[in-house]
């Protein structure tokens, strides 16, 4: 019988010792990397370097474009990532016909993405954005076997090796000024350079990812430049409504009052969990979120605190319902599914396919970022979700923590280099563990057996700025208890990334 994981219980687990060691490493890294003195605005968007090679900078330098009052802009990026997973110990894999295990054999994985970001001003205060993207990928083990610590944030649930072109974002934003001071907003991808009131309402409608706007973090979020692992993209336990690529349709209202901001959004979920087709019945099925943000200064250094709550109403199954259905009727097992399922052939396992109906999932989280010096910042995220229902859009994690530090290379005269160290830990609920322990599959995890333990990752990377807009990064990740299973792992993943901005 799986046990409920409490912080006290965690302290008794072997993985908790690893966590303490990770925390010690991070503290040591911060101390080692922290330069003396400081006074900067790093959590506010850094000005684009004048010598950075991108389309808009080139035009601006030739006097053909005004970056401070843009009617349009166009940016692009290309990111190539390759990773190698070393073989690891696993007494069983895909036991009893299950399909959710990470292969214990050595494996390679890659992703390649290219994006064009187009923005145009429609009328005063109104902006339209459009971002086509192409992706090609080969995940580890067909993306199976990792809960919230998926080793490459670029991986999509429907991705294939053949490049696919799709529309990632197409939306309109309208800003209504309410006064206050004038703030400069910098020209960037999906952001026209302009000045706005410090007090304003911004309404966004269309096709985007809610994490484009919610749960942002200066030091843990822009993963094409920063960490590789999905645990650092947002809360691993934040099952935000989105299709299999991470995008959705919906609306977002933001209220900015100087140092405070409140964001409220409703987004469409997929029709079936982790799939591409969208359910547009947004009055029936939806993902709601509310975020309150406060930006501050501590000893002259900028930082931010964000509180996030979400509530999803989706056509999803509860873990306890699935287990009860299997007990009441052994015919309602994973191998006999007639509705949508992930294809498990385990006749002794429960499956969520039998119990999907309108259910609610909720969670609350906190997100912190703080500059310690001009070139060093730290971050922390923590979220608690109820853990009663299946993963519908993001990861199978029910509770998550992540923290770490990010440093720019200015102290060693490499100001555009980035170095980072971070740790992420995820837990699942008691009901979730009972379901997986009975052989069930939830999204992309389910080994057939389970010895419940927190899944975790420690990541260390260094990104070298080779040319003005070209970075090459090396990365190491150490993952333990993959898919929350203490019987398997630990796993080491080594990676490299080439990232160019245009």
């Amino acid at each position, binding site marked *: 019988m799986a046990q409920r994981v409490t912080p006290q219980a965690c302290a008794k687990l072997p993985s908790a010792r690893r966590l303490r060691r990770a925390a010690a490493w991070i503290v040591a890294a911060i101390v080692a990397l922290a330069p003396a003195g400081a006074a900067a605005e790093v959590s506010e968007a850094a000005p684009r370097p004048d010598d950075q090679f991108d389309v808009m900078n080139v*035009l601006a330098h030739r006097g*053909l*474009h005004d970056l401070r009052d843009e*009617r*349009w802009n*166009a940016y692009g990026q290309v990111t190539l990532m390759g990773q190698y997973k070393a073989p690891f110990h696993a007494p069983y894999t895909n036991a009893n016909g299950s399909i959710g295990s990470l292969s214990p054999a050595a494996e390679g994985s890659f992703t390649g993405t290219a994006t*064009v970001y*187009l923005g*145009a001003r429609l009328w005063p205060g109104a902006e*339209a954005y*459009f971002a*086509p993207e192409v992706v090609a990928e080969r995940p580890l083990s067909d993306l199976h076997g990792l809960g919230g610590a998926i080793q490459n944030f670029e991986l999509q649930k429907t991705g294939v090796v053949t490049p*696919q*072109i*799709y*529309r*990632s974002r*197409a939306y309109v934003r309208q800003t209504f000024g309410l006064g206050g001071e004038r703030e400069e907003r910098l020209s960037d991808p999906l952001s026209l350079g302009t000045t706005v009131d410090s007090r304003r309402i911004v309404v966004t409608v269309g*096709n985007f990812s809610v994490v484009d706007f919610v749960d942002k973090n200066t030091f843990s979020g822009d993963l094409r430049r920063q960490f590789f692992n999905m645990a650092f993209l947002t809360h691993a336990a934040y099952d935000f409504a989105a*299709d299999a*690529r991470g*995008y959705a*349709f919906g609306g977002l209202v933001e209220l900015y009052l100087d140092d405070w901001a409140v964001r409220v959004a409703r987004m469409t979920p997929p*029709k079936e969990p982790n799939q*591409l*087709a*969208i*359910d*547009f019945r947004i009055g029936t099925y939806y993902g709601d979120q509310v975020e309150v943000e406060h930006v501050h200064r501590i000893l002259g250094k900028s930082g931010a605190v964000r509180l996030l709550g979400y509530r999803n109403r989706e056509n999803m199954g509860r873990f306890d319902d699935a287990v009860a259905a299997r007990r009441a009727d052994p015919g309602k097992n994973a191998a006999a599914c007639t509705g949508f399922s992930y294809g498990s052939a385990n006749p002794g396992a429960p499956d969520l396919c039998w119990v999907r109906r309108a259910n609610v999932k909720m969670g609350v989280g906190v997100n912190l970022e703080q500059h310690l010096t001009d070139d060093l910042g730290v971050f922390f995220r923590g979220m608690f979700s109820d853990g009663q229902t299946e993963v519908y859009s993001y990861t199978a994690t029910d509770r998550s923590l992540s923290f770490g530090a990010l440093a720019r290379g200015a102290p060693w005269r490499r100001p555009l280099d980035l170095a980072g160290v971070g740790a992420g830990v995820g837990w699942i609920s008691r009901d979730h563990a009972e379901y997986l322990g009975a052989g069930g599959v939830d999204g992309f995890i389910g080994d057939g057996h389970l010895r419940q333990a927190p899944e975790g990752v420690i990541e260390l990377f260094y990104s070298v700025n080779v040319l003005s807009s070209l970075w090459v990064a090396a990365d190491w990740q150490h993952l333990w208890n993959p898919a929350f299973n203490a019987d398997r792992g630990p796993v080491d993943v080594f990676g490299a990334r080439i990232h160019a901005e245009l």
Partner: protein
Amino acid sequence: MPSCSRATAPALAIAIATAAASTPAIADGFAVERLRLAPPGAGWIALDSLDMRGGLGGAVALSGGYARAPLRVDGTPVVANQAFADVAASVTWDRFRAHLGLTSPLRVSGRSTGVGAARIEAPDVSLGRHPDTLSDARVGASARLLGGPAGGFRLGASAELRVPSGDRVDYVTDGTYRGVILSSFAGDHGALTYAGQLGVHLRPLDVPSIPGGPRGSELLFGLAVGARLPFGPTAIVVGPEVFGETALRSAFGAQSTGVEGLLSLRVEGTAEDGPQLRARVGVGAGLDPRFGAPEWRMVFGVELFGRTGHRSAKP
């Protein structure tokens, strides 16, 4: 056991043959859309006015449209409804233009049918099922080779690459790279404005099993004539655009030629300073509604265009 193998092999062969005969082959789809939207800033809906001029400039266009029954097989509209939204952008410098265009199929649907032993499955594309699908991307470049931007005769050339995207079963792509090479001409004589084109659509796909399906590379042609009516700081241009294509392997054959016409109306800003808007709408029908030409069609769009630098334009 050899004896058992000898006994079962013929039965197995018969079973496979029977199954093969009773299971119709499923024909793959292809790119049905025949409307080749002109690059942003080109003026017309389907043709190019070749009036690139000045310093660095550009245009961003948002277009939408609907075509009724662009693919019929023995009277059955395999593709009965085809609605799209298109976003495109272009950059101009002097007499040159480069452009990028991306189309989102919003709705592609119809009725399945069969031809001989082949079953032709109708597509079922909707925004819900395919929330982010883009059909073949267009990347191209154009140049005006002769004449000034407002002269009586302008001659130009263009090339466009179609990068495959989407699924063939949705009838939004051939699944192969394609190319378009065009020679264009245009001119203005007082209130009269015109444009034309002749070119080749380099298309590897040959689907003889579906009547009206692609038959390899095609000859493209088109002509537009309109009246330009100044109206304050804007101009209204109204006139017909006729365009079509025919497969080179059976040029102007009944099943391999499509022609359609659009009556197009556009209202555009004419000031030389600052960005200008252009709104346009076209309604038309297949003059020879085969080979992808629809029963009827409507197209609309808005465009923001202008120039940030200024070079003297020589008419």
